[in-house]
């Protein structure tokens, strides 16, 4: 059946046009990691609960494990690999590092992508908003406090720029 016929997809990832072939059942996460070598996005649950696979799709944060790769034809995608500007870390990356907002690190790429999207929307976000908007990202190590502080610190830096 058509399930085995490969689909050709053209999309933009981190500002560059990318072409790939995929099976219709492949998720965006699988294509990013296995075909394109962009292993920054992590697979935590593969069912939309943990947010480790978060990417920005056409300006909105989504779980890439819940997007079919064939759906991203013509889309704009930003992954964690595209967050830093050349060798300059993005404020969220810098603040996560400085604030030790990670332990094992598997949740971190997802948090970075979601936090950046959140702060771009509202660099002034309150602790409550940060906690609510990041509720689709799970972390089993840090207890969240350091993550929330890091996001607040990054927000402050972004306001000052």
């Amino acid at each position, binding site marked *: 059946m058509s399930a085995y016929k490969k689909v050709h997809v053209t999309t933009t990832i981190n500002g560059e046009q990318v072409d790939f072939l995929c099976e219709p059942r492949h998720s965006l996460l699988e294509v990013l990691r296995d075909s394109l070598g962009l292993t920054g996005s992590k697979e935590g649950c593969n*069912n*939309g609960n943990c947010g480790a696979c978060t990417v920005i799709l056409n300006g909105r*944060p989504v779980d890439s494990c*819940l997007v079919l790769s064939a759906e991203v034809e013509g889309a704009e995608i930003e992954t964690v690999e595209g967050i830093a500007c050349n060798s300059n870390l993005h404020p969220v990356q810098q603040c996560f590092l400085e604030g030790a907002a990670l332990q094992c690190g598997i949740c971190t790429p997802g948090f970075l992508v979601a936090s950046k999207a959140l702060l771009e929307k509202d660099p002034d976000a309150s602790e409550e908003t940060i906690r609510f*908007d990041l509720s689709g990202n799970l972390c089993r190590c840090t207890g969240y406090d350091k993550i929330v502080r890091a996001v607040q610190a990054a927000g402050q830096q972004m306001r000052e720029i």
Partner: protein
Amino acid sequence: MAPKSVSEVVAVLSEQGDRAKLLAGGTDIIVQLREGLREADVVVDIKKIEEVTSFNYCPENGLSLGSAVACYNLYEHPELSKLYGALADSTHIIGGWQIQSRASVGGNLCNASPAADSIPSLIALNAIAVIAGPKGERTVAAEDFCTGPGRNVLENGELLVSIQIPAQCSNSGSAYERFIPRNEMDIAVVGVGSWVKLAADGTIADARISLGAVAATPLFAEQASAILIGKEPNEEVFSAAGELARQIATPISDMRGTDEYRSHLVSVLVKRTLITAVERAQN
């Protein structure tokens, strides 16, 4: 495949029957397919179809909401979020932010979970499902759409095209609240949607209450809604409605809560959502 028109989808669905599954936001169907809960030979992405992905509001006809419109469009919209408070409440708590970027109200309705967060709001707001199929178009009231857990009225070849919600006036208001043990990202133990319209003298001119997670399908609490009509909006009346609503609830006991606890929650949430709905109607 990603057809561009409703009629193409109807044709595929008629031909493939159960072997074709529709893809809107994908937040339920992709998981169900991956986990083997549902099977498909063809997945039909309906997001290239204008009628299904657009929404518009006009004061005469109300809101026409394409079935694949993602949740965030409702709660982020400055006017719609006020006009349809209950729906804004629901869409803001379905999953997390990432899910809300993709998941649609139409998908939530079709998925027909007894605990779905948007369905009580749709019922309270008197929404109507517009269905296209091989025999043309038909409409079904939101409270009649679900037929059991995970089951709905859609027949072979049919798809949900849009949801029509009546226009709101300045003296109507609605609210949805659910009870969950966590702060967010959880499935409702009980969910309640309420809608009220106030008369010029401040009494309740019309009301609709709907309950989620207390029966095999979300329920319209008809009697509880009816006793509010003509009354002053106050705690006593709201409690009476809560009691009546509780009587139609036939909840189960599971790890999320016992049946007794759920029944108790019904009366509490009916009261709370009515208070919010009336406040919103007054402002």
